[in-house]
C-alpha cells in the first residue's frame, strides 16, 4: 500500500504549520505501515485554506484544508479508505477562487515540485528557451514587444523597449538582473513564484540573456525571504546539472550563468538603481537617471533589470508567441496581473487575472469581504506608496490607466483591506514614518520631508494645529515634485488620499478644504 500526498513548502504555509503537518503525516504513514510519497510544492495561493493538502484522483487533484496537525490521524485513515473527510474540498481546480482565474505566470505554482527539473519539463518547462535558441536576439525582443508585457515591479514600463535599448547599447559585458527585492508591503507574488516555480524565473532570465547578449545574470533577493533563497539555490543547481544553465545551453554552444545575491534589509534597494549600487557592494543610494540602466547599469555596463514576475512571464510569451499573451487584458494593460489580496479579508491570496477586473470583484467575489465581518472602510492598492481608496471607488478597474485616473497606482498589484476600525490619520502618519525609516538619504525632500511629515501629522493628530494642513500639502507637493525616486515622490499618495477620502479621521468635516 502506498499513497502520494502533495503539501506546500511555501513559507506562508509553513508559517501556519505545514511542517508540523508533514511530520504528523510521516508518523501516521509509518504507524499504518504505508509507504508515503510526500511531494512538497509551492502554494496554490488559497491561503485561508493553508496548510492545504492534496491527493491524486480520477478527477484530478483533491484538496483538504485547512489541516491542523490534530486532523492528520483521522485524515490519513480517511485517505486510505477512499478520501471522504470533513476537510475535503473536492477537486482543487473546481474551487471557484481558482477556477475563475487565468493562471499564465502561476500555472505551475502549487502544482509541481519547484526544485525538480523533471517535473518542470513535464509541465511545459524550457519550451520557451528551446524556441529562443532558434531565434535571433532581434526576434526575441520583437516577441516580447508584441506581447505588450509591461514591468510588473510597479512602474509598468514596456519590457520590450527596455530590452531593445540594452540590446542596442554598446558594452564590453552586459548583465541581466532580476529585481527580487519584493519590499512593498502587502505583496508576496514574487515570493510565491520563487518558492513555487523558480525554474520559470531562471528560464526567463536565460532568455533575457540571449535577447540582449548577456552571459551573466544576478538575482537580487531580499533577506526577509530565506525560504525563497533556499528554493532558488536548489533550482539553480538543478538547472546547471541539467545543462540549462552555464556553458553550452541545451547543446547550443551559447553561455549564460546566474548567481543569487541576498540584500540586507533595505527597502530602497527595490528601486532599480539603488539595487544596482547594492549589487556593486555599496550603500543602496539611488542614482540619477539618465543614464538608464539599459545603457549604463551594473558596473556601468548595459543591463536589463526586471522584476521577478516580468521575467517569469517571458518563457510562455516566447513559447506561445507575443500575440497569445497580448490577447489577455484591457486597453494598454496587456496580459495578466497577479493580484495579491491581503489584510482584513476573509479569503486572502493570489489571484491572477487578465487586467480589467474591478476592485469590488476582487475584494468581495474573491475575498468574501472583511475577515472581521465589520464594514469595509478602505483598501490600499499598490503597496506602501499606493493610494487609500474608499468603498465608493471599488468599481475602479484594476489596470495601470484606470487606477491612475482614480488617483492611485497599480504598483506590484497588492491590495490590503481595512475594516471600519482603521484610523486613517494613523495610516497617513505610518506612510511618512515608513519613508523616514527607509529613505536612502540622497535627496532632501525625501530625507527631511518625511521626518517633517511625521511631525506635522503628529501635531494634526494631537488636535493642536489644524492650521498645519496647508503646510502638509506644501510638503507633499515638494516631495512629489522634487524627490529623486518613487519613495519620496509617492509617499504623498497614501497621505493625501487618506485626507481626501477620510477627512473625519483628521478632525476635518467633509466640506473643509484639506
Amino acid at each position, binding site marked *: 500500500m502506498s499513497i502520494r500526498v502533495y503539501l506546500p513548502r511555501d513559507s506562508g504555509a509553513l508559517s501556519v504549520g505545514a511542517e508540523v503537518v508533514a511530520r504528523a503525516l510521516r508518523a501516521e504513514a509509518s504507524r499504518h505501515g504505508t509507504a508515503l510519497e510526500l511531494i512538497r510544492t509551492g502554494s496554490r495561493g488559497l491561503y*485561508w485554506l493553508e496548510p492545504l493538502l492534496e491527493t491524486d484522483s480520477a478527477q484530478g487533484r483533491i484538496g483538504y484544508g485547512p489541516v491542523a496537525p490534530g486532523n492528520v490521524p483521522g485524515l490519513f485513515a480517511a485517505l486510505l479508505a477512499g478520501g471522504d473527510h470533513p476537510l475535503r474540498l473536492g477537486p482543487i481546480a473546481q474551487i471557484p477562487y481558482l477556477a475563475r482565474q487565468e493562471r499564465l505566470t502561476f500555472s505551475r505554482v502549487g502544482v509541481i515540485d519547484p526544485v525538480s527539473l523533471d517535473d518542470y519539463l513535464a509541465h511545459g518547462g524550457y519550451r520557451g528557451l528551446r524556441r529562443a535558441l532558434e531565434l535571433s536576439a532581434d526576434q526575441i525582443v520583437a516577441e516580447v514587444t508584441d506581447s505588450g508585457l509591461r514591468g510588473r515591479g510597479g512602474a509598468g514600463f514596456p519590457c520590450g523597449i527596455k530590452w531593445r535599448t540594452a540590446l542596442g547599447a554598446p558594452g564590453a559585458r552586459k548583465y541581466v538582473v532580476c529585481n527580487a527585492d519584493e519590499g512593498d508591503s*502587502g505583496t508576496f507574488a514574487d515570493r510565491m513564484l520563487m518558492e513555487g516555480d523558480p525554474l520559470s524565473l531562471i528560464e526567463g532570465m536565460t532568455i533575457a540573456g540571449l535577447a540582449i547578449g548577456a552571459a551573466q545574470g544576478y538575482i537580487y533577493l531580499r533577506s526577509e525571504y530565506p525560504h525563497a533563497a533556499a528554493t532558488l539555490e536548489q533550482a539553480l543547481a538543478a538547472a546547471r546539472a541539467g545543462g540549462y544553465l552555464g556553458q553550452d545551453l541545451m547543446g547550443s554552444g551559447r553561455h549564460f550563468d546566474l548567481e543569487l545575491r541576498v540584500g540586507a534589509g533595505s527597502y530602497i534597494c527595490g528601486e532599480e538603481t539603488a539595487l544596482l549600487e547594492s549589487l556593486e557592494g555599496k550603500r543602496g543610494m539611488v542614482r540619477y537617471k539618465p543614464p538608464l540602466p539599459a545603457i549604463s547599469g551594473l558596473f556601468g555596463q548595459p543591463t536589463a533589470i526586471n522584476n521577478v514576475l516580468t521575467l517569469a512571464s517571458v518563457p510562455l510569451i516566447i513559447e506561445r508567441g507575443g500575440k497569445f499573451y497580448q490577447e489577455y487584458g484591457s486597453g494598454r494593460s496587456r496580459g495578466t496581473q497577479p493580484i495579491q489580496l491581503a489584510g482584513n479579508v476573509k479569503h486572502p491570496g493570489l489571484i491572477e487575472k487578465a487586467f480589467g477586473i474591478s476592485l469590488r470583484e476582487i475584494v468581495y467575489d474573491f475575498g468574501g469581504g472583511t475577515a472581521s465581518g465589520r464594514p469595509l472602510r478602505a483598501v490600499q492598492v499598490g503597496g506602501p506608496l499606493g493610494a487609500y481608496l474608499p468603498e465608493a471607488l471599488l468599481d475602479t478597474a484594476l489596470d495601470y490607466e484606470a487606477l491612475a485616473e482614480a488617483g492611485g497606482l497599480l504598483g506590484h498589484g497588492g491590495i490590503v483591506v481595512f*475594516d471600519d476600525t482603521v484610523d486613517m490619520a494613523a495610516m497617513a502618519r505610518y506612510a511618512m514614518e515608513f519613508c523616514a525609516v527607509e529613505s536612502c538619504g540622497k535627496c532632501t525632500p525625501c530625507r527631511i520631508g518625511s521626518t517633517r511629515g511625521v511631525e506635522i501629522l503628529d501635531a494634526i493628530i494631537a488636535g493642536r494645529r489644524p492650521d498645519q494642513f496647508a503646510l502638509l500639502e506644501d510638503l507633499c507637493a515638494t516631495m512629489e515634485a522634487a524627490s529623486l525616486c518613487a519613495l519620496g515622490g509617492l509617499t504623498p499618495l497614501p497621505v493625501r488620499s487618506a485626507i481626501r477620502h477620510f477627512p473625519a479621521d483628521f478632525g476635518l468635516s467633509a466640506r473643509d478644504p484639506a
Partner: protein
Amino acid sequence: MAIAKLSLEHHARVLSIVRALKQREGALLPILHRVQAEFGFIPPGAVAPIAEELNLTRAEVHGVISFYHDFRSTPPGRVVVQLCRAESCQALGAQALAQRARTRLGIDFNQTCADGSATLLPVYCLGNCACSPAITIDGQLFGRLTPERLDEILDAHGLGAPAR
C-alpha cells in the same frame, strides 16, 4: 577615534572569509553577510582588514554596514524576534501584538533584554501578508498570530515573563 582591533584568531577568520569571496563582483555584501553569520554581528575590528583587502577606505566599509538594517555592530540577543509592522499586519492586529511583545520582553523595538535573552526588531513586511499578522522568532516564520499564540511561542523559547 582609536581603531578597534580583533584578536589574532578572529582577525584570521575575517581574512579567510574575505579572501574566499573577494574575487566575486561586488563582493562586499556577501563578505559582510558571511562575517555576520559567523560572529553573530560585524565586529568593529573587522572593518579595517575588510577595507584593506578590498582596497576600500574604512569609511566606505563602515558606511555600507551602517546603511543596511540587517548589519549590526553589536551582538544581538540569544533570540531575535522580528515583528511585522506593515499595513496588512496592522489591519489584523499587529499593534496589539507589538504591545504584548514589548510588555512580555520588557523592551521596546530595536532593544535587547538586559539579560541578553532577546532582541526585538521591527520589520516592514515578511511577505506573509495573506497570513497576517506575522513574526519571526529565531528565524522561524509564524502567521495568523494572536497575542495568546505569541505567549505560547515566547514561553516555548523561555522568553520574558511567562504568561499566566
